[in-house]
């Protein structure tokens, strides 16, 4: 058999643009598979020369789905440069907005991008496996997704000015206090939103038995996990220290100050993708592959710190007898737990008296030449590092985007799925859908390094060893 390459381009139902290649050996078996992020953004370079004050707004434009994460990490980096500690109210406003974004982002992945697979199965005809069919057969579920996302987006708008690219999170804290009426309006919706999030988790758990093969083969492998965590070891998304855990649950290194991240994280570059391949330095490349995001966070966290999410976390941790859950498919499960957590935590923070204080911002001038801001974005740990002149002009930027941390693991997952499900002699749509689905498990935000494109169909090309196309599959 001739050596072939299968190309899936673009990958659908993810944030951003990517393609997948699957290499078939001369023996007729899947030899390798890779995810390629095919567009270059260049934020690290074109931010140079700008005043530091522009960085939150500039870097928010990295993405339309998780701009809050970039604003939060950017303002935290600038806090370090200014040498300021934001007041408690400012910190809590940032935390609430960050959680609201995580909620709306996880909601989008579950209801709009992934639920067609859960409802109809990975082998369902592609005409049925989409959100339009889901709206016909599960209208209440679709409405739930809309309501939950609207809840998160409205919080971002009310507390930070705009739903997309918000401006209310600023260096030193937040731009304005929370109005009492806003607080009451949010709190009034909490019970209904919790009910929706709980029913989503129940639906997912009730259907898990249908997906045992996906659980076992959609990126199920040992890896390290990284997340930020606080002193108590509870789930944390805004502040804390970095922690690396291995696949057995051993802590390799914790209490790492985010500003020291370069001592532990290396950034490799491969010629097939514009996405960096970060790795845990002490283990080298690529052995230092680690996973970030919801799965890593709930694996590392001892508790969530909120009652309903903690109940779910106990069930989750029982999946692997208390050891880290290694199945990438369970990213979905972890995100659903985080959705419940986010709603509970937003309620807790809003009910905290200090959150409603008028004192929301500290001010200062440039005091340090370097600042690192780190937070947990929906998809994982996000780093912004800035260098400035004494006048506050940016001279250097390094960004490690949350999704980038997962690059090595995504590639490992794609390869595992392709080797399990893709039969080069009979390439089915269900098999190709699973190759895409493993990427959807990670919920990558490739928009952070690319623009999402409005291309209607996926094309799968089979090429011989001379790169000549010998067969084309059109997928919609």
């Amino acid at each position, binding site marked *: 058999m001739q050596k072939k390459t299968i190309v899936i381009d673009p990958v659908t*139902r993810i944030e951003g643009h990517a393609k997948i290649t699957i290499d078939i050996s001369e023996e007729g078996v899947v030899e390798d598979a890779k995810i390629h992020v095919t567009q270059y953004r260049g934020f690290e370079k074109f931010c140079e020369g700008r005043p530091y004050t522009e960085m939150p707004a500039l870097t928010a434009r990295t993405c*339309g*789905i998780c701009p809050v994460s970039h604003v939060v990490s950017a303002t935290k980096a600038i806090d370090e440069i200014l040498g300021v500690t934001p007041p408690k109210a400012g910190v809590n406003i940032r935390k609430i907005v960050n959680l609201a974004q995580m909620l709306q982002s996880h909601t*989008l992945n579950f209801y*709009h991008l992934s639920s067609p697979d859960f409802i109809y199965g990975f082998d369902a005809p592609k005409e049925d496996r*989409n*959100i339009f069919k889901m709206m016909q057969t599960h209208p209440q579920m679709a409405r739930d997704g809309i309501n939950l996302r*609207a809840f998160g987006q409205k919080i971002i708008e009310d507390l930070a000015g705009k739903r997309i690219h918000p401006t209310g999170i600023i260096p030193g804290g937040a731009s304005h206090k929370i109005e009492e009426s806003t607080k009451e309006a949010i709190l009034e919706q909490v019970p209904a939103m919790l009910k929706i999030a709980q029913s989503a988790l129940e639906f997912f758990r009730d259907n898990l038995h249908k997906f045992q093969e996906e659980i076992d083969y959609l990126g199920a492998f040992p890896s390290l996990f990284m997340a930020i965590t606080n002193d108590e070891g509870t789930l944390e998304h805004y502040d804390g220290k970095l922690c690396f855990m291995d696949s057995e649950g051993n802590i390799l290194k914790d209490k790492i100050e985010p500003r020291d991240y370069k001592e532990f994280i290396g950034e490799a570059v491969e010629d097939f993708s514009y996405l960096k391949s970060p790795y845990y330095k002490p283990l080298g490349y690529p052995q230092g592959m680690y996973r970030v995001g919801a799965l890593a966070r709930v694996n590392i966290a001892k508790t969530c710190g909120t009652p309903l999410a903690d109940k779910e976390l106990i069930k989750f941790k029982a999946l692997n007898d208390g050891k880290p859950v290694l199945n990438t498919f369970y990213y979905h499960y972890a995100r659903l737990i985080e959705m419940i957590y986010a709603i509970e935590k937003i309620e807790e923070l809003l009910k905290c008296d200090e959150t409603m204080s008028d004192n929301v911002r500290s001010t200062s001038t440039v005091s340090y030449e370097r600042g690192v801001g780190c937070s947990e974005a929906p998809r994982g740990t996000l780093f912004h590092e800035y260098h400035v002149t004494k006048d506050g002009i940016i001279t250097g930027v390094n960004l490690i985007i949350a999704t980038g941390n997962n690059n090595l693991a995504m590639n490992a997952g794609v390869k595992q799925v392709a080797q399990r499900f893709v039969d080069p002699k009979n390439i089915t749509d269900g098999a190709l859908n699973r190759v895409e689905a493993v990427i959807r498990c990670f919920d990558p935000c490739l928009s952070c390094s690319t623009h999402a494109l409005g291309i209607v*169909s996926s094309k799968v090309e089979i090429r011989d060893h001379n790169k000549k196309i010998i067969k084309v599959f059109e997928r*919609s």
Partner: protein
Amino acid sequence: MRVIIGYGNELRGEDAFGVDTIKKLQKLSLKNTKLLSLHQLTPEIVLQLLDANEIIFIDASYDEKNHYALACSLTEQDNLNLSHHISPKTIIYMLNNLYKNMPKFLIYSMMSRNFDTIEDTLRYQECVDAVALYLSLEGQKN
């Protein structure tokens, strides 16, 4: 109620056509009309459209050959490659199927070949003014 939605990215040149048209319309105090200015269309927008009996989408469309041409279309190519933003057709589909609201809808587009800058400020503004004036007059008829 009539709802007019202008959407686009103000930092991407002529992609701001919809947003700039909404700015113009905001100065005209249209009756029985809700104006929405958005960066992009997202699913939860439907909750602001439940009372609409007519929805007008204003956007810029990429077209190399017919720069600054204006088009009004009842249909548009749908995009099943769902990401965090969705198409007007999906919005209407959601309203029809989830909320049993069947509004009339129209899409007004300005053809553009440049989403990096506004190539010809005068012609761009003429397009904004033309669509705003037309929608204003249409609103007075109803």
